[in-house]
């Protein structure tokens, strides 16, 4: 029976010691320990969260990079295309202008030729006239009798010469 009856002394000491223990542990052990555990829980949670964020950012960065790469490639293609077009147009332009220049030169040359020819013909005509006058003088000197008949014959001669000259041209 004595075993199940609480003793005054031990009950008193237990109350005192346990209350004291509770107070000291609460103040000097549980408070720092539990605060630190909660803090650690928070820091782990935050670390996990920030790792997730970093992973997300990484993925975003990667997709950004890809887009940028794609864009750069497109730009390059565009530039190449433009360059090719420009080259083609420059070549075409050059060809055309060269052609025109050639045509213009040919035309100029042919004009010059015809001008020269006309001059040559005129000169030739002059010379022929002079020659003819000389011939006529000689003829006249020789035969002044039939001057008029002679003059018409000479004109006839010169005209036929003129016609011949035109046929040559």
């Amino acid at each position, binding site marked *: 029976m*004595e*075993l*199940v*009856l*609480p*003793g*005054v*002394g*031990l*009950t*008193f*000491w*237990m*109350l005192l*010691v*346990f209350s*004291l*223990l*509770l107070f*000291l*542990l*609460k103040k*000097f*052990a*549980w*408070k*720092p*320990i*539990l605060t*630190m*555990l909660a*803090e*650690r829980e928070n*820091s782990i949670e935050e670390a996990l969260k920030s790792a997730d964020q970093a992973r997300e950012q990484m993925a975003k960065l990667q997709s950004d990079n890809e887009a940028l790469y794609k864009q750069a490639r497109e730009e390059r293609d565009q530039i190449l295309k433009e360059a090719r077009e420009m080259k083609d147009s420059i070549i075409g332009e050059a060809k055309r202008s060269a052609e025109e220049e050639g045509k213009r030169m040919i035309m100029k040359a042919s004009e010059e030729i015809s001008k020269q020819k006309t001059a040559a013909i005129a000169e030739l005509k002059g010379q022929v006239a002079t020659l003819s006058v000389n011939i006529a003088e000689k003829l006249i000197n020789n035969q002044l009798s039939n001057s008029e008949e002679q003059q018409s014959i000479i004109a006839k001669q010169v005209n036929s010469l003129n016609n011949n000259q035109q046929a040559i041209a």
Partner: protein
Amino acid sequence: MPENKELSTIEKLQKFTIIVIFTLFSPIFTFANPTISAIDTANAGKSEQHAVHAEAHDQVKPEAFNPGTMILDHVKDAHDWHILDYTSNGVSHPLSVPLPIILYDNGLHVFMSSKFEHGHAVVESKGNFYKLHEGHIYKTEADGHIEANAKKVVSNAAPLDFSITKNVFALLLGAVIILLVFLTASKGYKKRGVGAPKGIQSLLEILIVFMKDEVIKPSVGKHYAKYLPLLLTIFFFIFINNLLGLIPFFPFGANLTGNISVTLILALFIFIVVNFSGNKHYWKHIFMPDVPVALWILLIPIEILGVVLKPFVLMLRLFANITAGHTIILGFFSLIFIFGQMNIVAGYGTALFSVAFTLFMSVLELLVAFLQAYVFTLLAALYIGSATEEHHHAEEHH
């Protein structure tokens, strides 16, 4: 820095507890003054009755082994720390460590328990005479006469006994050890912050986190943080003292957590906390249960009884489990001596089995040490949880 200041406070407290340990053990240093109660013949002249008693004691042959007495003496509290009995010249002598006796009887009376000479001597203190009789201290006349009737009920007056008994000593030692362990851990947290725990800190952290997250949090509910210090202190107090009680040599092995006074105070704390934190649903459940009013007359007394019964069961369960554990282990050891008295060979033979069984029981008791601390804390947390529960279910009646 306030952090450093607190750290140094913890360190100071740690040093202080170490000093307390040494102070606790100071009785051992008086051990040089033999406490072995070989009867001092000089005392024989004190009183005739005492002399007769002493003479009778002197002639005691090593008495027949009585397992019941031995076990009861162990599981009960005592005024000195009995270590062993030895026999010299055919006389049995107890070897024990004396503990301080503190009596309140119109003033404080303080002396060492060795003065009682295991109940054979009358101690005079400030004009009063005291005698130790069957583990209790009674006030007597100078002759030390104890008036007991046939049923062994003593009619002598008993002073208020606040002695540092075996269990009080174990309680102080346990408290100091707990304090030292947790201050060390706390210092670790202060030093390492949120970093990885080290040493004793990591061992305790497993238990603290387990109790906090797996037991207290789900049982108490959302207001659990308020009750953490009390519940964790109770858990570690029971657990560590259970373990210390399993160490079979001085200064451990006292049946502290198997003492009804100790479990009474633990249960009292739970009783007070549960009823002081009980909300209106808790009290409505008791005084205005969700049953027809006619049944209230039946149910209200039952509910009121339940309020007291819950902590009462906590008290009884811990007491019974730990006392039973100590009793079984001592019972196995007693077998050796019971058989040894019949036949020495039978004694040795039994020893083989007894040691094996005791080993098994000790391992089992290690489990029980944790289990009982766990169960006490879990149930206490559940009681607090049901008293502070916010929503109210009519179906939840139990």
